[in-house]
């Protein structure tokens, strides 16, 4: 792929930094998100907590629904395709969505391969639990990484684990010499060129965001203090008692994430958060985060 193309793809991710990307399922929700100050929206058929509850095969959202959301707002619109489903991705590209999330929240279409994202002009974001997974996705052409967390739970513990893991594994690379980096690249199952790059720069070559279980302004500030450059909020907003107020509060928390007084102010009088489920109560085979290779 031409280097210019990757710069345009990561360029849009740069514009989303310090912002909140919100899951929405119709035009009315998209307008609430935009009015609250969302930097982008993710157009979905069902939010992750409903996908979890209702089961069945989760696929790319209906085109009519995504189009309705694209027409409703002036901010960027993202949409999800199934892992490895490069035809869903081609359809979303033809629709001209601004970003595609190749997402573990949908039922995977391929048990071994992800989409070759270099082959597309539209940028992709992918989930990761650790540095090896993040670098494999970047090698395939992802222009943004987000933690997977455990979507649809409202429990931030896995997003925290994944962000801490990625940051710790990057710090550890800095202590290794050139010979050791080859061995570490094998352990990470990632290309040695990317491992060397991270060892030298101390950060991923694409923006690093957080997702999966963020439900409160405090959750958003927590993952940002741990190193996230922006946050995705899925079920956390529209499954809460007062979505407009919660959305606006999380937007403020993402900007003032190091300012406890500002966080206190936005955390007051928010109504009830989504009830959620403890991620520890979900058996491994029912976890969404284990999808992806």
């Amino acid at each position, binding site marked *: 792929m031409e280097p210019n193309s990757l710069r*345009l793809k990561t*360029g849009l991710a740069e514009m989303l930094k*310090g912002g909140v990307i919100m899951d929405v399922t119709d035009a009315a929700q998209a307008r609430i998100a935009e009015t609250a100050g969302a930097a982008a929206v993710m157009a979905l058929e069902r939010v992750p907590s409903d996908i979890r509850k209702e089961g069945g095969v989760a696929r790319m959202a209906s085109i009519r629904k995504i189009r309705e959301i694209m027409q409703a707002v002036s901010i960027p619109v993202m949409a999800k395709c199934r892992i490895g489903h490069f035809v869903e991705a081609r359809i979303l590209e033809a629709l001209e969505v601004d970003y595609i999330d190749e997402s573990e929240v949908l039922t995977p279409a391929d048990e071994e391969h992800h989409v070759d994202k270099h082959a597309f*002009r*539209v940028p992709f974001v992918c989930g990761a639990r650790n540095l090896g997974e993040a670098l494999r996705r970047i090698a395939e052409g992802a222009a943004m990484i987000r933690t997977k967390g455990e979507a649809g739970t409202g429990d931030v513990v896995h997003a925290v684990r994944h962000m801490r893991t990625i940051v710790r594994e990057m710090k550890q690379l800095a202590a290794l010499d050139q010979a050791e980096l080859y061995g570490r690249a094998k352990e990470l199952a990632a290309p040695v060129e990317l491992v060397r790059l991270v060892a030298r720069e101390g950060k991923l070559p694409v923006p690093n965001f957080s997702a999966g279980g963020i439900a409160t302004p405090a959750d958003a500030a927590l993952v940002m203090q741990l190193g996230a450059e922006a946050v995705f909020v899925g079920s956390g907003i529209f499954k809460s008692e007062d979505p407009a107020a919660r959305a606006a509060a999380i937007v403020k928390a993402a*900007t003032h994430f190091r300012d406890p007084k500002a966080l206190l102010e936005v955390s007051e009088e928010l109504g009830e958060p989504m009830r959620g489920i403890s991620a520890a109560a979900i058996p491994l085979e029912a976890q969404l985060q284990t999808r992806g290779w």
Partner: protein
Amino acid sequence: MAIGVLALQGDFAAHAAALRRAGAGAVIEVRRPEQLDELEALVLPGGESTTMLKFLQAGGFWDKLREFAARRPVFATCAGAILLARRVESPPQASLGLLDATVERNAYGRQLESSIRQAQVAPAFVRELGPSLEAVLIRAPRFKDLGPDVEVVASAGDEPLLVRQGRLLAASFHPELSPASPVHGWFVDQVRRWR
């Protein structure tokens, strides 16, 4: 005194890095209106202008920023240029009304229409900026209906991409995303000259 970068949302970190590479002294991330009192100049970064407006239209930020930008050097890119404009289109939204121009949002289309172009520098500015500039356009806006005091610094065809009005400098592209940004160097020089 320091140069501030409005850090409510967007690519403020890329601007801070570009200013440091250009030899600026202290660079401060600005999230509260009272921080403007400590600054000699300000950068309004790229990002989502609708998100930035949410913050600016609360807590006395708006008037303070208007007053600051009316007397100090300001460099605005993309969303920042939208904030400075006299009028905003597609859709219309509030703006500071300091740059005498209309700015049309997402004028080229969605992300698939984002592109890297070469901007030709107007003869009067070639000495400072060189003959051409790399212009990274991301869901870019377009300048229209420029007022008599607005100079076109760089353009592609007949489209102005970088304009100046007194101490205001505004780009529809992102010099902060290019590996070397002569525009940041020029801005830092102008801030020193206007001291």
